[in-house]
Protein backbone atom coordinates (compact mmCIF):
# COMPACT_ATOMS: atom_id res chain seq x y z
CA UNK A 1 0.00 0.00 0.00
CA UNK A 2 1.45 3.33 -0.97
CA UNK A 3 1.48 6.19 1.52
CA UNK A 4 -0.74 8.32 -0.70
CA UNK A 5 -3.66 5.92 -0.25
CA UNK A 6 -3.85 6.22 3.52
CA UNK A 7 -7.25 7.17 4.82
CA UNK A 8 -7.59 10.36 6.85
CA UNK A 9 -8.14 8.35 9.99
CA UNK A 10 -4.99 6.31 9.42
CA UNK A 11 -2.94 9.46 8.84
CA UNK A 12 -4.34 11.00 11.99
CA UNK A 13 -3.55 7.88 14.03
CA UNK A 14 -0.07 7.65 12.53
CA UNK A 15 0.92 11.21 13.38
CA UNK A 16 -0.67 10.97 16.82
CA UNK A 17 1.18 7.77 17.60
CA UNK A 18 4.46 9.20 16.37
CA UNK A 19 4.17 12.32 18.52
CA UNK A 20 3.16 10.34 21.57
CA UNK A 21 6.10 7.96 21.10
CA UNK A 22 8.51 10.87 20.82
CA UNK A 23 7.01 12.42 23.94
CA UNK A 24 7.34 9.19 25.89
CA UNK A 25 11.03 9.10 25.02
CA UNK A 26 11.53 12.64 26.33
CA UNK A 27 9.62 12.35 29.57
CA UNK A 28 10.98 15.59 30.98
CA UNK A 29 9.00 17.45 28.32
CA UNK A 30 5.87 16.15 30.02
CA UNK A 31 7.06 16.53 33.58
CA UNK A 32 8.66 19.98 33.46
CA UNK A 33 5.53 21.99 32.56
CA UNK A 34 3.66 20.07 35.25
CA UNK A 35 6.32 20.91 37.82
CA UNK A 36 6.14 24.52 36.72
CA UNK A 37 2.37 24.44 37.20
CA UNK A 38 2.73 23.06 40.72
CA UNK A 39 5.47 25.48 41.73
CA UNK A 40 3.67 28.56 40.44
CA UNK A 41 0.56 27.58 42.36
CA UNK A 42 2.48 26.98 45.58
CA UNK A 43 4.16 30.38 45.26
CA UNK A 44 0.86 32.22 45.63
CA UNK A 45 0.05 31.21 49.23
CA UNK A 46 3.64 32.14 50.12
CA UNK A 47 3.21 35.54 48.53
CA UNK A 48 -0.29 36.31 49.73
CA UNK A 49 -0.52 34.58 53.08
CA UNK A 50 -2.03 31.34 54.26
CA UNK A 51 -5.54 32.57 55.17
CA UNK A 52 -7.92 29.93 53.84
CA UNK A 53 -10.61 32.45 53.01
CA UNK A 54 -8.46 34.63 50.78
CA UNK A 55 -6.95 31.61 49.11
CA UNK A 56 -10.27 29.98 48.32
CA UNK A 57 -11.46 33.30 46.90
CA UNK A 58 -8.57 33.55 44.43
CA UNK A 59 -7.97 29.82 43.86
CA UNK A 60 -9.81 29.56 40.50
CA UNK A 61 -7.88 32.48 39.07
CA UNK A 62 -4.53 31.15 40.28
CA UNK A 63 -5.09 27.65 38.97
CA UNK A 64 -6.24 28.89 35.61
CA UNK A 65 -3.49 31.46 35.18
CA UNK A 66 -0.92 28.83 36.13
CA UNK A 67 -2.50 26.46 33.62
CA UNK A 68 -2.24 29.14 30.90
CA UNK A 69 1.42 29.74 31.68
CA UNK A 70 2.41 26.09 31.82
CA UNK A 71 0.60 25.42 28.54
CA UNK A 72 2.51 28.33 27.06
CA UNK A 73 5.76 26.85 28.31
CA UNK A 74 5.07 23.48 26.72
CA UNK A 75 3.85 24.91 23.41
CA UNK A 76 7.35 25.42 22.10
CA UNK A 77 7.93 21.70 21.57
CA UNK A 78 4.82 21.37 19.39
CA UNK A 79 6.59 22.16 16.12
CA UNK A 80 10.11 23.21 17.08
CA UNK A 81 11.98 19.89 16.94
CA UNK A 82 10.11 18.83 13.81
CA UNK A 83 11.05 22.12 12.20
CA UNK A 84 14.69 21.73 13.17
CA UNK A 85 15.08 18.20 11.79
CA UNK A 86 13.06 18.96 8.67
CA UNK A 87 10.21 16.50 9.23
CA UNK A 88 7.75 19.38 9.41
CA UNK A 89 8.49 20.30 5.81
CA UNK A 90 8.08 16.67 4.82
CA UNK A 91 4.66 16.65 6.44
CA UNK A 92 3.62 19.81 4.64
CA UNK A 93 4.80 18.32 1.35
CA UNK A 94 2.90 15.06 1.85
CA UNK A 95 -0.30 14.54 -0.16
CA UNK A 96 -2.40 14.36 3.02
CA UNK A 97 -4.34 17.50 4.01
CA UNK A 98 -2.44 19.72 6.43
CA UNK A 99 -5.60 20.05 8.54
CA UNK A 100 -5.44 16.38 9.60
CA UNK A 101 -1.72 16.42 10.35
CA UNK A 102 -1.94 19.61 12.37
CA UNK A 103 -4.98 18.42 14.27
CA UNK A 104 -3.23 15.17 15.17
CA UNK A 105 -0.21 17.05 16.46
CA UNK A 106 -2.40 19.35 18.54
CA UNK A 107 -4.34 16.42 19.99
CA UNK A 108 -1.03 14.77 20.89
CA UNK A 109 0.11 17.97 22.55
CA UNK A 110 -3.06 18.15 24.59
CA UNK A 111 -2.74 14.51 25.65
CA UNK A 112 0.82 15.14 26.76
CA UNK A 113 0.34 18.45 28.56
CA UNK A 114 -3.34 19.19 29.05
CA UNK A 115 -4.44 15.86 30.43
CA UNK A 116 -1.80 15.57 33.20
CA UNK A 117 -2.67 19.14 34.16
CA UNK A 118 -6.29 18.15 34.67
CA UNK A 119 -5.26 15.13 36.71
CA UNK A 120 -3.08 17.15 39.03
CA UNK A 121 -5.38 20.18 39.34
CA UNK A 122 -7.62 18.75 42.14
CA UNK A 123 -4.53 18.24 44.27
CA UNK A 124 -3.60 21.89 43.92
CA UNK A 125 -7.20 22.88 44.54
CA UNK A 126 -6.88 21.18 47.94
CA UNK A 127 -3.76 23.19 48.68
CA UNK A 128 -5.61 26.39 47.85
CA UNK A 129 -8.72 25.51 49.87
CA UNK A 130 -10.95 25.65 46.82
CA UNK A 131 -14.62 25.52 47.71
CA UNK A 132 -15.74 21.90 47.72
CA UNK A 133 -18.68 22.60 45.45
CA UNK A 134 -16.33 23.90 42.75
CA UNK A 135 -14.32 20.75 42.08
CA UNK A 136 -16.65 19.53 39.37
CA UNK A 137 -16.62 22.92 37.69
CA UNK A 138 -12.83 23.07 37.89
CA UNK A 139 -12.41 19.70 36.18
CA UNK A 140 -15.05 20.41 33.55
CA UNK A 141 -13.67 23.83 32.65
CA UNK A 142 -10.15 22.42 32.43
CA UNK A 143 -11.42 19.56 30.31
CA UNK A 144 -13.10 21.91 27.84
CA UNK A 145 -10.69 24.82 28.21
CA UNK A 146 -7.22 23.29 27.91
CA UNK A 147 -7.87 21.99 24.35
CA UNK A 148 -8.71 25.59 23.41
CA UNK A 149 -5.38 26.66 24.87
CA UNK A 150 -3.56 24.02 22.80
CA UNK A 151 -5.45 24.96 19.63
CA UNK A 152 -4.96 28.73 19.92
CA UNK A 153 -1.40 28.28 21.11
CA UNK A 154 -0.61 26.15 18.07
CA UNK A 155 -1.33 29.19 15.87
CA UNK A 156 1.20 31.25 17.79
CA UNK A 157 3.82 28.49 17.67
CA UNK A 158 3.28 27.98 13.96
CA UNK A 159 3.86 31.70 13.38
CA UNK A 160 7.03 31.87 15.46
CA UNK A 161 8.60 28.49 14.71
CA UNK A 162 10.94 29.93 12.09
CA UNK A 163 12.15 32.71 14.37
CA UNK A 164 15.24 32.10 16.47
CA UNK A 165 14.09 33.80 19.66
CA UNK A 166 10.40 33.08 19.41
CA UNK A 167 9.75 32.24 23.06
CA UNK A 168 8.91 35.67 24.45
CA UNK A 169 7.20 36.70 21.25
CA UNK A 170 4.97 33.64 21.51
CA UNK A 171 3.59 34.72 24.88
CA UNK A 172 2.90 38.21 23.55
CA UNK A 173 0.96 36.75 20.62
CA UNK A 174 -0.95 34.04 22.42
CA UNK A 175 -1.83 35.33 25.88
CA UNK A 176 -4.34 38.01 24.76
CA UNK A 177 -6.18 35.30 22.82
CA UNK A 178 -6.52 33.24 26.00
CA UNK A 179 -8.47 35.92 27.88
CA UNK A 180 -12.03 34.75 27.03
CA UNK A 181 -11.27 31.19 28.19
CA UNK A 182 -9.81 32.51 31.43
CA UNK A 183 -12.79 34.77 32.11
CA UNK A 184 -15.47 32.16 31.50
CA UNK A 185 -13.63 29.33 33.24
CA UNK A 186 -12.95 31.22 36.45
CA UNK A 187 -16.45 32.60 36.43
CA UNK A 188 -17.89 29.09 36.10
CA UNK A 189 -15.85 27.94 39.10
CA UNK A 190 -16.92 30.99 41.12
CA UNK A 191 -20.55 30.41 40.25
CA UNK A 192 -20.25 26.77 41.26
CA UNK A 193 -18.85 27.86 44.64
CA UNK A 194 -22.07 29.78 45.24
CA UNK A 195 -24.07 26.65 44.47
CA UNK A 196 -25.56 28.16 41.31
CA UNK A 197 -25.81 26.44 37.92
CA UNK A 198 -22.80 27.15 35.72
CA UNK A 199 -23.91 25.44 32.54
CA UNK A 200 -24.04 28.79 30.71
CA UNK A 201 -20.32 29.44 31.12
CA UNK A 202 -19.57 25.82 30.24
CA UNK A 203 -21.63 26.15 27.08
CA UNK A 204 -19.64 29.23 26.06
CA UNK A 205 -16.33 27.47 26.70
CA UNK A 206 -17.64 24.53 24.67
CA UNK A 207 -18.53 26.95 21.87
CA UNK A 208 -15.01 28.38 22.02
CA UNK A 209 -13.67 24.82 21.89
CA UNK A 210 -15.63 23.82 18.82
CA UNK A 211 -15.01 27.14 17.12
CA UNK A 212 -11.26 26.87 17.58
CA UNK A 213 -11.32 23.16 16.72
CA UNK A 214 -12.74 23.93 13.28
CA UNK A 215 -10.85 27.15 12.53
CA UNK A 216 -7.48 26.90 14.29
CA UNK A 217 -6.00 24.01 12.22
CA UNK A 218 -6.52 26.05 9.04
CA UNK A 219 -4.74 29.02 10.56
CA UNK A 220 -1.96 26.75 11.81
CA UNK A 221 -1.56 25.22 8.35
CA UNK A 222 -1.35 28.65 6.71
CA UNK A 223 1.09 29.86 9.35
CA UNK A 224 3.31 26.79 8.96
CA UNK A 225 3.47 27.36 5.22
CA UNK A 226 4.70 30.90 5.91
CA UNK A 227 7.19 29.79 8.55
CA UNK A 228 8.77 26.97 6.57
CA UNK A 229 9.18 29.17 3.53
Amino acid at each position, binding site marked *: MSVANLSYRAVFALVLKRDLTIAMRHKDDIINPLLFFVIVVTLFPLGIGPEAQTLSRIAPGIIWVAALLSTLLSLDRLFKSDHVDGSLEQMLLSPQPVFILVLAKIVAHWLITGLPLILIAPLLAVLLHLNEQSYGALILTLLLGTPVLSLLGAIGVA*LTVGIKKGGVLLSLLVL*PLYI*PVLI*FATSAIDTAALGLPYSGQLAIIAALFFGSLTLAPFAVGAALKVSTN
Partner: protein
Amino acid sequence: MWKWLHPYANPEVSYHFAGKILPWLSALAALFLSIGLIWALAFAPADYQQGDSFRIFYIHVPAASLSMGIYLGMAIAAFTSLVWQFKLADASAAAMAPVGATFTAIALITGAAWGKPMWGTWWIWDARLTSELILLFLYLGVIALHNAFEDKNLAGKAAGILTLVGVINLPIIKYSVEWWNTLHQGSTVSKLGKPSMSVDMLWPFVFCFLGFIFLVSVFICIRFRSEILARNSIRPWVRTLVSEHIAQEKTNAV
Protein backbone atom coordinates in the same frame (compact mmCIF):
# COMPACT_ATOMS: atom_id res chain seq x y z
CA MET B 1 -14.80 49.03 -11.35
CA TRP B 2 -12.03 46.41 -11.27
CA LYS B 3 -10.53 47.94 -14.38
CA TRP B 4 -10.40 51.27 -12.65
CA LEU B 5 -8.74 49.73 -9.60
CA HIS B 6 -6.30 47.65 -11.58
CA PRO B 7 -3.48 50.21 -12.08
CA TYR B 8 -3.25 50.70 -8.31
CA ALA B 9 -2.08 47.11 -7.92
CA ASN B 10 1.18 48.35 -9.39
CA PRO B 11 3.42 49.47 -6.51
CA GLU B 12 4.91 52.32 -8.50
CA VAL B 13 1.51 53.80 -9.35
CA SER B 14 0.27 53.51 -5.77
CA TYR B 15 3.49 54.98 -4.44
CA HIS B 16 3.07 58.08 -6.55
CA PHE B 17 -0.66 58.24 -5.88
CA ALA B 18 -0.04 58.15 -2.12
CA GLY B 19 2.58 60.85 -2.54
CA LYS B 20 0.17 62.98 -4.54
CA ILE B 21 -2.69 62.87 -2.05
CA LEU B 22 -0.38 63.32 0.95
CA PRO B 23 -0.25 67.16 0.93
CA TRP B 24 -4.03 67.39 0.45
CA LEU B 25 -4.66 65.02 3.33
CA SER B 26 -2.21 66.91 5.54
CA ALA B 27 -3.90 70.21 4.74
CA LEU B 28 -7.34 68.76 5.45
CA ALA B 29 -6.13 67.21 8.71
CA ALA B 30 -4.56 70.46 9.85
CA LEU B 31 -7.66 72.45 8.91
CA PHE B 32 -10.21 70.17 10.55
CA LEU B 33 -8.14 69.48 13.64
CA SER B 34 -7.36 73.13 14.32
CA ILE B 35 -10.99 74.15 13.90
CA GLY B 36 -12.27 71.17 15.86
CA LEU B 37 -9.82 71.31 18.74
CA ILE B 38 -10.07 75.08 19.26
CA TRP B 39 -13.84 74.80 19.14
CA ALA B 40 -13.76 71.86 21.56
CA LEU B 41 -11.39 73.51 24.00
CA ALA B 42 -12.64 77.07 24.07
CA PHE B 43 -16.09 77.40 22.55
CA ALA B 44 -18.02 74.20 23.19
CA PRO B 45 -20.22 74.37 26.29
CA ALA B 46 -19.19 72.47 29.42
CA ASP B 47 -21.18 69.38 30.29
CA TYR B 48 -23.72 70.07 33.00
CA GLN B 49 -22.55 67.04 35.01
CA GLN B 50 -18.90 66.58 34.16
CA GLY B 51 -18.01 70.23 33.70
CA ASP B 52 -14.96 71.03 31.64
CA SER B 53 -13.45 67.56 32.01
CA PHE B 54 -15.89 66.65 29.24
CA ARG B 55 -13.48 68.28 26.81
CA ILE B 56 -11.32 65.13 26.97
CA PHE B 57 -14.21 63.41 25.19
CA TYR B 58 -13.28 65.20 21.96
CA ILE B 59 -10.03 63.26 21.66
CA HIS B 60 -10.83 60.15 23.68
CA VAL B 61 -13.80 58.98 21.63
CA PRO B 62 -12.28 59.57 18.17
CA ALA B 63 -9.07 57.83 19.28
CA ALA B 64 -10.96 54.87 20.71
CA SER B 65 -13.20 54.34 17.70
CA LEU B 66 -10.32 54.85 15.28
CA SER B 67 -8.22 52.30 17.15
CA MET B 68 -10.92 49.71 16.51
CA GLY B 69 -11.46 50.95 12.96
CA ILE B 70 -7.79 50.70 12.08
CA TYR B 71 -7.67 47.12 13.37
CA LEU B 72 -10.64 46.29 11.17
CA GLY B 73 -8.92 47.95 8.22
CA MET B 74 -5.79 45.96 8.94
CA ALA B 75 -7.82 42.74 9.02
CA ILE B 76 -9.47 43.56 5.68
CA ALA B 77 -6.05 44.30 4.17
CA ALA B 78 -4.65 41.05 5.59
CA PHE B 79 -7.60 39.12 4.20
CA THR B 80 -7.20 40.56 0.69
CA SER B 81 -3.49 39.85 0.78
CA LEU B 82 -3.95 36.25 1.91
CA VAL B 83 -6.80 35.42 -0.45
CA TRP B 84 -5.76 37.27 -3.61
CA GLN B 85 -2.00 37.32 -2.93
CA PHE B 86 -2.17 41.08 -3.21
CA LYS B 87 1.24 42.30 -2.03
CA LEU B 88 0.28 45.94 -1.60
CA ALA B 89 -2.38 45.04 0.94
CA ASP B 90 0.40 43.60 3.08
CA ALA B 91 2.26 46.87 2.87
CA SER B 92 -0.81 48.82 3.90
CA ALA B 93 -1.49 46.47 6.84
CA ALA B 94 2.11 46.91 7.97
CA ALA B 95 1.65 50.67 7.68
CA MET B 96 -1.51 50.63 9.78
CA ALA B 97 -0.26 48.66 12.80
CA PRO B 98 1.89 51.33 14.52
CA VAL B 99 -0.71 54.02 13.80
CA GLY B 100 -3.43 51.90 15.38
CA ALA B 101 -1.25 51.13 18.39
CA THR B 102 -0.60 54.84 18.93
CA PHE B 103 -4.29 55.67 18.80
CA THR B 104 -5.06 52.84 21.21
CA ALA B 105 -2.47 54.24 23.61
CA ILE B 106 -4.00 57.71 23.28
CA ALA B 107 -7.45 56.32 23.99
CA LEU B 108 -6.14 54.50 27.07
CA ILE B 109 -4.25 57.44 28.53
CA THR B 110 -7.01 59.98 27.89
CA GLY B 111 -9.46 57.47 29.33
CA ALA B 112 -7.38 57.24 32.50
CA ALA B 113 -7.07 61.03 32.71
CA TRP B 114 -10.82 61.34 32.29
CA GLY B 115 -11.45 58.60 34.82
CA LYS B 116 -9.43 60.24 37.58
CA PRO B 117 -11.81 63.19 38.14
CA MET B 118 -14.92 61.13 37.29
CA TRP B 119 -14.23 57.89 39.14
CA GLY B 120 -11.60 59.08 41.59
CA THR B 121 -8.94 56.66 40.35
CA TRP B 122 -6.67 56.58 37.34
CA TRP B 123 -7.51 53.08 36.36
CA ILE B 124 -10.69 51.16 36.72
CA TRP B 125 -11.39 47.76 35.22
CA ASP B 126 -14.14 49.22 33.14
CA ALA B 127 -15.21 47.03 30.23
CA ARG B 128 -14.31 49.55 27.58
CA LEU B 129 -10.92 50.43 29.05
CA THR B 130 -10.07 46.76 29.56
CA SER B 131 -10.90 45.76 26.01
CA GLU B 132 -8.93 48.77 24.79
CA LEU B 133 -5.94 47.50 26.78
CA ILE B 134 -6.27 44.05 25.24
CA LEU B 135 -6.52 45.67 21.81
CA LEU B 136 -3.21 47.37 22.54
CA PHE B 137 -1.68 43.97 23.33
CA LEU B 138 -2.99 42.60 20.03
CA TYR B 139 -1.46 45.55 18.16
CA LEU B 140 1.86 45.12 19.93
CA GLY B 141 1.83 41.41 19.05
CA VAL B 142 1.32 42.22 15.37
CA ILE B 143 4.11 44.82 15.43
CA ALA B 144 6.46 42.46 17.27
CA LEU B 145 5.79 39.72 14.74
CA HIS B 146 6.48 42.17 11.92
CA ASN B 147 9.82 43.06 13.44
CA ALA B 148 10.79 39.46 14.14
CA PHE B 149 11.10 38.49 10.47
CA GLU B 150 13.97 39.64 8.30
CA ASP B 151 12.01 39.13 5.10
CA LYS B 152 9.29 41.79 4.82
CA ASN B 153 7.05 39.65 2.64
CA LEU B 154 7.11 36.75 5.10
CA ALA B 155 6.54 39.17 7.96
CA GLY B 156 3.51 40.56 6.18
CA LYS B 157 2.02 37.10 5.67
CA ALA B 158 2.62 35.97 9.26
CA ALA B 159 1.26 39.21 10.71
CA GLY B 160 -1.72 38.91 8.39
CA ILE B 161 -2.65 35.50 9.80
CA LEU B 162 -2.27 36.85 13.34
CA THR B 163 -4.42 39.86 12.49
CA LEU B 164 -7.19 37.64 11.15
CA VAL B 165 -7.06 35.40 14.22
CA GLY B 166 -7.20 38.55 16.33
CA VAL B 167 -10.15 40.01 14.50
CA ILE B 168 -12.14 36.81 15.01
CA ASN B 169 -11.20 36.91 18.67
CA LEU B 170 -11.82 40.60 19.19
CA PRO B 171 -15.63 40.44 19.43
CA ILE B 172 -15.35 37.41 21.72
CA ILE B 173 -12.88 39.23 23.95
CA LYS B 174 -15.01 42.37 23.97
CA TYR B 175 -18.13 40.41 24.85
CA SER B 176 -16.40 38.36 27.53
CA VAL B 177 -14.86 41.44 29.12
CA GLU B 178 -18.20 43.23 29.19
CA TRP B 179 -19.80 40.19 30.73
CA TRP B 180 -16.98 39.84 33.26
CA ASN B 181 -17.34 43.50 34.13
CA THR B 182 -21.03 43.34 34.90
CA LEU B 183 -20.36 40.24 37.00
CA HIS B 184 -17.72 41.86 39.20
CA GLN B 185 -19.34 45.22 39.73
CA GLY B 186 -18.97 45.16 43.47
CA SER B 187 -17.49 48.60 44.11
CA THR B 188 -19.31 51.81 43.39
CA VAL B 189 -18.72 52.27 39.72
CA SER B 190 -20.31 55.32 38.27
CA LYS B 191 -20.07 54.55 34.58
CA LEU B 192 -19.67 57.42 32.23
CA GLY B 193 -23.23 57.77 31.17
CA LYS B 194 -24.05 58.31 27.54
CA PRO B 195 -23.59 62.04 27.32
CA SER B 196 -26.62 63.78 25.95
CA MET B 197 -25.00 65.56 23.09
CA SER B 198 -26.39 68.93 22.27
CA VAL B 199 -25.82 70.40 18.84
CA ASP B 200 -23.10 72.79 19.99
CA MET B 201 -21.23 69.78 21.37
CA LEU B 202 -21.84 67.63 18.31
CA TRP B 203 -20.32 69.95 15.72
CA PRO B 204 -16.87 70.31 17.29
CA PHE B 205 -16.91 66.54 17.81
CA VAL B 206 -17.63 65.96 14.11
CA PHE B 207 -14.77 68.29 13.16
CA CYS B 208 -12.36 66.55 15.56
CA PHE B 209 -13.40 63.13 14.34
CA LEU B 210 -12.94 64.03 10.66
CA GLY B 211 -9.64 65.70 11.49
CA PHE B 212 -8.36 62.57 13.21
CA ILE B 213 -9.48 60.44 10.27
CA PHE B 214 -7.48 62.65 7.91
CA LEU B 215 -4.52 62.55 10.28
CA VAL B 216 -4.64 58.75 10.33
CA SER B 217 -4.68 58.72 6.53
CA VAL B 218 -1.63 61.00 6.50
CA PHE B 219 0.29 58.65 8.77
CA ILE B 220 -0.78 55.59 6.81
CA CYS B 221 0.23 57.26 3.52
CA ILE B 222 3.72 58.09 4.77
CA ARG B 223 4.27 54.61 6.22
CA PHE B 224 2.69 52.93 3.19
CA ARG B 225 5.19 54.68 0.94
CA SER B 226 8.15 53.53 3.01
CA GLU B 227 6.77 49.98 3.15
CA ILE B 228 6.46 49.92 -0.65
CA LEU B 229 10.03 51.13 -1.05
CA ALA B 230 11.36 48.59 1.45
CA ARG B 231 9.55 45.73 -0.26
CA ASN B 232 10.57 46.70 -3.82
CA SER B 233 14.11 47.79 -3.11
CA ILE B 234 15.62 45.90 -6.08
CA ARG B 235 13.18 47.24 -8.66
CA PRO B 236 14.65 49.68 -11.18
CA TRP B 237 12.02 52.35 -10.54
CA VAL B 238 12.90 52.41 -6.84
CA ARG B 239 16.58 52.63 -7.72
CA THR B 240 16.12 55.63 -9.99
CA LEU B 241 13.78 57.25 -7.47
CA VAL B 242 16.31 56.85 -4.69
CA SER B 243 19.23 58.15 -6.71
CA GLU B 244 17.14 61.16 -7.77
CA HIS B 245 16.27 61.75 -4.14
CA ILE B 246 19.90 61.56 -3.02
CA ALA B 247 21.00 63.87 -5.84
CA GLN B 248 18.35 66.38 -4.86
CA GLU B 249 19.47 66.25 -1.25
CA LYS B 250 23.05 66.90 -2.32
CA THR B 251 22.07 69.98 -4.32
CA ASN B 252 20.02 71.19 -1.38
CA ALA B 253 22.99 70.75 0.91
CA VAL B 254 25.20 72.74 -1.43
